[in-house]
């Protein structure tokens, strides 16, 4: 992956990610998040993780964000009306986020191997679907089944929660 493409997609992801937080209109936020996720999927693919990248688009951009949009439209959430901003709380929030950022930068700066480039792969075309599938049904068989139960529980929970109570 050439550095130009890396920076393009990284900036795309970060700028639209920031727009999610800054935007007042929830629909605009949701759409910015979609673009951000597409940039992230491109970064995954730049790391030769094609399966994860495609799953990212399929699950997040294709399903989860449509669900978000659907709920925003259903509840008819308009742009937030301007409230009195609690400056102390906002400044605190920004300060904590900045502190976290500084910490992350400090840790990454002190990692010796973070200056190394990625080692080359043996084959240019690697069947990652095959390999992930082998791991998923082999080593991670029990977690996989637990995830299945979790999804079932989530489905039942979502149906129960969104059912109207009979009075």
């Amino acid at each position, binding site marked *: 992956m050439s550095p130009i493409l890396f920076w393009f997609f990284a900036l795309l992801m970060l700028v639209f990610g920031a727009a999610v937080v800054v935007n007042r209109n929830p629909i605009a936020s949701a*759409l910015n998040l979609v673009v951000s996720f597409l940039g992230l999927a491109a970064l995954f693919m730049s790391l030769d993780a094609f399966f994860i990248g495609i799953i990212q688009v399929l699950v997040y951009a*294709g399903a989860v964000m449509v669900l978000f949009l*659907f709920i925003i*439209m259903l509840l008819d959430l308009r742009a937030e009306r301007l409230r009195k901003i609690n400056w102390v709380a906002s400044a605190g929030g920004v300060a904590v986020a900045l502190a976290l950022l500084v910490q992350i930068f400090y840790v990454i700066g002190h990692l010796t191997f973070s200056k190394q480039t990625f080692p080359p792969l043996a084959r240019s075309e690697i069947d990652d679907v095959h390999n992930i599938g082998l791991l998923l049904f082999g080593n991670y068989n029990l977690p996989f089944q637990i995830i299945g139960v979790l999804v079932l529980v989530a489905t039942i929970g979502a149906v129960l929660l969104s059912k109207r109570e009979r009075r």
Partner: protein
Amino acid sequence: MNVFFITTSLLKIIGMIFVVILPMVSYAVYAERRVSALIQDRLGPNRVGPAGLFQPIADAAKFLFKEDFTPAQVNKFYYWLAPCLAMVPAITTIAVVPFGSTLLGVPMVIADINVGILYVFAISSLGVYGIVLAGWASNSKYPFLGGVRSSSQMISYELSLGLAVIPVFLLVGNLRLTNVVRYQIENGWMIAPFIGDWANLGKWLLAIPMITSFFVFTIAVFAETNRLPFDLPEAEQELAGGYHTEYSSMKFALFFLGEYAAMITGSAIIVTLFLGGWHLPLPSLHGGFHWLVVDGTAPGWRGVVGGLFNIATFFVKVAALLFMFMWVRWTLPRFRYDQLMRLGWLFFFEIALVNIFIVAGILAYFQF
């Protein structure tokens, strides 16, 4: 990443979009009008050019010169964005579909990636944004209802769509679409797995779930492309046109063309997955039940002719499916919305799910 690869890829992309998809879309509109006329015992457009063949050009000119009206209360940015979002995913999907074998040694597929079918689902699931945004940005009741309807319809039918292809990949063991075509050439098409292996009971049994899977997939494609009998998002009689009510001129045309482009890519996927892709079974000169494979690997002019023949085969199959789309549209009435949802969740979803278990059972029992 050499110059040759980039040049051929660019040529394929440009050729695919401007020489194949866009003319095919405009002539699909013309064909739709002629076919509907045929079915309803009318004549259809036959005035512009011989047999009305220049009608698409006249339509395009009309759309371009119409007033591009933007209603006052719409959300401008998203109102303009929506038609583009409706068109792009439909065209992008075609990138992974193998539309021919090879031509002069160049594989006739734009991007042969190892997660081909997942890519198709991922990109086509983005198509819903165009419709939802159009409905929301129009800031008007009927388009909004159309947008909400379509988002829930597309999410619901994506499940059947995804589950219906799993049997194919249980057989092939690979998500790469060129491998799916290769498998079908060697072992018979997906809807007729018994070809070439007539005495095998297992293959005959396998045909039942594979044909079921084909039908579930095709019907789900109907729902995903908002075609009748599932065109609830734009039902004229109840929604006054649905999500594109407030659109006019070229922006409306983009929705219209996007729908046909989605139909063409949908047909191309169906052909690739179930109907043997670019392969046409010809009886072999050497006798027996082995099919003669015509492709572009032969040396000299025979390779070129073979490659072109494969491409032609593929698009003839796509055109046949498009005709079926139109035939269904002008024959069946529209479903009611609750019927549509019940059909998706309580019927096709279960059928597709049970189908996977049947195919897995047959594969485990007969071991082929």
